[in-house]
């Protein structure tokens, strides 16, 4: 079963955004922040992309951070491949199109757009990751 946590945080407005996030989202953000700095410090080589995903016995968490500081997080089961590509696609085809290009969406607050939700849903339901599991 797929779950999706979607947080958009950018440095100048991080405080404002964190204020309205639920406590679970705050914990998630804190954990990801720690993992990110942990990975960049412990890596013996210069990390190009940094933290990509982690895996537990039950699930895998995939992480995508854009150069603008936007973070996309997806939890899947452990056999899923290419979740990162799906996150890229989510950013490119849904977030950019229906949030950035929607003049009525403010970028420093939680996304309210119904159309955005619809398109996220569509993208995930037509993705091969989703289909292969639901059989």
């Amino acid at each position, binding site marked *: 079963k797929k779950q999706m946590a979607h947080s958009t945080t950018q440095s100048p407005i991080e405080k404002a955004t964190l204020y309205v996030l639920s406590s679970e989202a705050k914990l998630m953000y804190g954990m990801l922040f720690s993992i990110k700095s942990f990975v960049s410090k412990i890596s013996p080589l210069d990390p190009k992309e940094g933290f990509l995903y982690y895996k537990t016995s039950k699930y895998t968490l995939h992480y995508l951070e854009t150069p603008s500081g936007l973070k996309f997080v997806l939890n899947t089961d452990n056999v899923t491949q290419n979740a990162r590509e799906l996150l890229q696609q989510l950013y490119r085809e849904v977030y950019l*199109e*229906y949030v950035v*290009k*929607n*003049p*009525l969406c403010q970028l420093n607050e939680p996304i*309210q*757009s*119904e*159309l955005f939700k*619809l398109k996220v849903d569509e993208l995930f339901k037509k993705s091969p990751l989703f289909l292969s599991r639901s059989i």
Partner: protein
Amino acid sequence: MRQQIIDTKINLHASGEADECLFEYLHAEMVNYALSKSCKNKEGEEELSRLEWMGFSVGYRIIERLTREWNRFKDELDMIKFICTDFWSSLYHKQIDNLRTNHHGVYVLQDNSFRLLNKVGTNSNKQYLQETPRLLSFTCGLLRGSLANLGIISTVNAEISTLPSCKFHVQVQRI
């Protein structure tokens, strides 16, 4: 003559993503700016006449550029048809989907997927319906301005019932 217009149109299309979103972002900021400058009037409606005036000036100029290869138009309907096809597709990358007229100076131009609205919502949700008039008043002015430069004095209103489709009502003023 006609062929050349189509050629420049194709070039406009081919020039890619950047020019498209530049206009969209600039338009969004113009709307924000116009709203920040105006206070609400008595009925609590937003004051959008400044935005409409910007559209008018742009439309008045744009028509010079778009009609430079054209002969004079036969009549009013001919001009409106030009607006629905060439004008609309060079600005919004598609043609008007439906044109109605009562042959007495009222024209209704319907666009089923208006470019400035199709990232905002679909017909399945009523969200943002309140805010959409501010995304249309520039285009109303644009229509009014371009018709004015073609010699038609008019008033233009917009109507939205379901996103992202909208209707522009053009009422020609007879003198």
